[in-house]
């Protein structure tokens, strides 16, 4: 996870795979944060969750918002964008980590009244995501494609 209020900074997270990239931005104070989490729930590996809470949706997402608040961001103003959650092909439904990651996020957002403004999730593609702190623009890079705005 990275949070910044420095307008020269572009936060980047590479190669999301089934992981979720979550970008939040308050345009008034120009504070933004980018979280790259890989698994839905910290109870999968509580020991590792203690060492690195940003690995899991349920421990990482609250920390992202709280850190942004500390920089002066306000929840009601925050723009939320989501990317990643790609899937391995699987007819039997036993490699669902991408879907589970996304479902965990939806559940947390629903409980807390957070709306997603834009998203690019699922499929089989490996995405790279960046957040421009100056403008709040979120950009995605997919293999073989031009950079696109989210």
């Amino acid at each position, binding site marked *: 996870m990275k949070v910044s209020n420095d307008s020269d900074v572009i936060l980047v997270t590479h190669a999301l*795979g*089934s992981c979720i990239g979550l970008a939040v931005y308050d345009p008034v104070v120009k504070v933004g944060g980018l979280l790259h989490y890989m698994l839905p729930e910290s109870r999968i590996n509580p020991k590792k969750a203690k060492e690195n809470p940003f690995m899991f949706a349920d421990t990482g997402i609250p920390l992202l918002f709280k850190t942004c608040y500390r920089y002066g961001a306000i929840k009601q103003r925050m723009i939320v964008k989501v990317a990643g959650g790609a899937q*391995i092909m699987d007819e039997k439904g036993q*490699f*669902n*980590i*991408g879907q589970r990651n996304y479902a965990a996020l939806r559940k947390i957002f629903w409980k807390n009244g957070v709306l997603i403004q834009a998203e690019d999730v699922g499929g089989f593609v490996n995405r790279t995501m960046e957040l421009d702190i100056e403008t709040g623009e979120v950009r995605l890079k997919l293999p073989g494609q031009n950079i696109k705005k989210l």
Partner: protein
Amino acid sequence: MKKIEKILDNIKRLPPFPLVALKIMHIAMDEEVSVQEIVEIIQYDPSITANVLRWCNSPYFGLRRKITSMKEALVYLGSKHLLEIVMLSSCAPYLEKSVAGYELAQGELWRHSVACAIMSQILAKKIKEDDAVVFTGGLLHDIGKIVLSEFVKDTFDKIIQLVKKGYDFLSAEKEIIGMDHAELGGRIGEKWGFPEEITKIITYHHQPEEINDVHVSLVHLADVGVLMLGIGAGADGLAYQGKKEAYELLGLRETDLMACMAELWVNLEKVENIVNFKGKNHGI
């Protein structure tokens, strides 16, 4: 020349795999292998010896003191790590290159391979399996991509059209080129004289259900886990099948895979240490 003939011709023209590394790979299949035996083989190859010393002093193996002789290396490392070092230093030159057909920049396939080797070990530990074979198999599973890359590059649009229709990338390679990277990797393993256990892993790493082999299933799950973490997933991305038969054979479930992925994630720094570690010459 037909595509298949051209591919087979490319395999023929590959330089041989380093002989000493090959010998080590074979004796590593024996669980009782001693450090002394390994040292006896590698001492006659100055470049591998030099590499072993360099790798011993790399951050990954994190020994507290500087190792200056093979004798010390053998005392401090033990046979397991010594084997890993020989494999890493012999495979690096093949896997470090960029693989344009899959849009993997230089070092990306190497990162994927190292992560898969370590992930295979983590999964092997979970089922209390010996891991000398899976480390090497995990490291080499995608070796076919180095040869298939140029053919994938030439036919990429056709392959991706099939993927859009619901094909997985492996079947699309087979359909368009006539051979997929797993089968081709197995052929390379045969040409290089790899132990059967290793070529088996390479050939079947996307189709563990066809062979019912513990090592193959471990590397399959490791590969899938590493792809889901986005590590070295190129233009083919995650467009491969996950096979439940691998779980069943190993007695594992998705939650176990997730726990192992978490374990790998906290070890990624070690992976990066290996990936970025540059020996001056690689012994070939």
